[in-house]
């Protein structure tokens, strides 16, 4: 299976050198972003896979466009290690040999590195592969980078991650995390490590998500805000701290990847007043787990009160697992009320020439524009 259907041949047409492109992939349980900043220079932010498609979504899409990834991808950012953002990113790192690799500075800590490369979990290969996607992907990236004598660019607030002068002046800047939370983040991870012989086989990223890397893209006259999964809670003011210190932001953005799947916890009024133009173009990658669904109808209402241009990279629909048709298997799956988490392909693609004012939007697969 591939992205292509008879009605979507246009997906194969690559952007022109003077075109900026933003793609957001949504798998229902997964999010990935790909940006063309002009002149065949690409940025990958996070990764997801689709059911029935080989390889990570971003890599598959670039191959569909016939883009040679080794040199074209300039920067890969893992905003955090939740498994809905990280699945397949090690494969992207290996396929994009000249790209810089950036991750949250919150994990630049020997304790985290020990967990990933020298802990009981890191040695339990089969445990890592499925239930610990974040640790598994980081383990593979760390080994690959070390073998290639490459290092990680650790992202924190107001740090230039990548700069290009090839066509348009392009900067990719991280706006978070703030160093105030690093110790708290590591403690959150350590607290999950069991004492003695308690049988825990899965370690998760800190919650709420205060280590996520929010990105600011400055390409020519364009400004793009990628909110990652940064949250704001009563105990940690993720967005508040970011908004207090935003030295790289010279003008407001008219394109926003809404933080944390459009949820209330990813919301802060200052995002809309200080960082975004009026009526910006907004994109959300929906998420589902444990019977919860993001964005909720309230989240969508709240977002459309801010913008007329909201796109969802995936629209949920009732579906059953596409597994074996054997009737006894189906009965067992019905009994546990099985719901597929990894779903079919959905992608929103936004393009414009650098001298144009309007973005051209296209929805592929299960992606939709929200009708107001």
């Amino acid at each position: 299976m591939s992205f292509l259907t008879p009605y979507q041949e246009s997906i194969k047409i690559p952007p022109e050198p003077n075109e900026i492109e933003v793609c957001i992939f949504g798998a229902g349980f997964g999010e990935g972003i790909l940006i063309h900043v002009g002149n065949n220079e690409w940025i990958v932010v996070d990764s997801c896979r689709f059911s029935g498609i080989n390889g990570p979504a971003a890599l598959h899409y670039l191959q569909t466009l016939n883009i040679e990834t080794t040199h074209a991808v300039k920067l890969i950012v893992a905003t955090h290690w939740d498994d809905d953002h990280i699945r397949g990113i090690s494969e992207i790192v290996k396929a994009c040999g000249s790209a810089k690799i950036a991750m949250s500075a919150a994990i630049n800590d020997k304790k985290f590195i020990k967990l990933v490369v020298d802990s009981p979990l890191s040695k339990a290969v089969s445990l890592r592969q499925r239930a610990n996607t974040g640790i598994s992907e980081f383990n593979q990236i760390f080994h690959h980078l070390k073998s290639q004598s490459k290092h990680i660019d650790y992202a924190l607030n107001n740090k230039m991650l990548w700069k290009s002068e090839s066509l348009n002046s392009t900067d990719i800047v991280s706006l978070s995390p703030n160093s105030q939370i690093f110790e708290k983040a590591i403690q959150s991870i350590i607290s999950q490590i069991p004492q003695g012989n308690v049988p825990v086989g899965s370690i998760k990223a800190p919650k709420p998500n205060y280590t996520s890397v929010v990105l600011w893209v400055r390409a020519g006259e364009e400004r793009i805000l990628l909110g990652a999964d940064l949250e704001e809670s009563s105990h940690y003011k993720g967005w508040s701290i970011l908004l207090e210190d935003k030295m790289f932001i010279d003008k407001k953005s008219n394109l926003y990847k809404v933080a944390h799947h459009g949820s209330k916890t990813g919301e802060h009024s200052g995002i809309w007043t200080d960082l975004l133009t009026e009526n910006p173009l907004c994109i959300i990658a929906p998420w589902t787990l444990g019977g919860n669904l993001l964005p909720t109808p309230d989240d969508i209402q709240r977002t459309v009160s801010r913008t007329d241009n909201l796109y969802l990279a995936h629209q949920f629909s009732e579906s059953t697992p596409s597994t074996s048709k054997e009737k006894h298997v189906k009965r067992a799956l019905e009994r546990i009320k099985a719901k597929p988490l990894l779903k079919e392909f959905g992608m929103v693609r936004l393009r414009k020439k650098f001298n144009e004012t309007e973005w051209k939007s296209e929805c592929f697969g299960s992606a939709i524009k929200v009708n107001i």
Partner: protein
Amino acid sequence: MESQANKYSIPLHLNENSSNGPSNSIYRKGFAKNFLKEAGMERDSVQTTPIVSFPQEEVIHHRNLNKNTQGVSHSLILDEWEGCITDVKEDTFIAKLYKQTQSESDLEIIEGEFEIRSVPEQDRHLIKEGVLFYWMIGREVKETTQIIHGDTIIFRRMPSWKGFDINNSSAITDEFFNALSGKY
């Protein structure tokens, strides 16, 4: 004295519509025993207590179970998933389930809700967020041509964290830390 069958006692959901499968305890235990034997699992590998050392972590390989065993009782695994408990409620627990497959394009992840009573009492203390298990759906064909369908949960071996001190760095950790920071 504990019987051999009891050693292998695994909870089993029998389909009410299973052909001829009497849902008494003898058949339940027999099913599970055959099921595990066919899966290549020795008693040690289904222990629910954590193992002590590595590298004993394993993936169970049982891809060729559909052999001709005419006249002999045998089991066939129809579908197999690896689960990770994500939430525990009063009577149920929620798990993310990853289909056991060799092909990346067949990658399939689902979410399911299991009744806690489907887990034997002696294993219920293991039902905690982050714990891993196998969920296997299969059938047993008896030599009398009876066919019993069912599924079973087997908790996975877990790495032993005993003696692991994350605060004490190691040579490997230092090597990676320096390399990834660009300090070669």
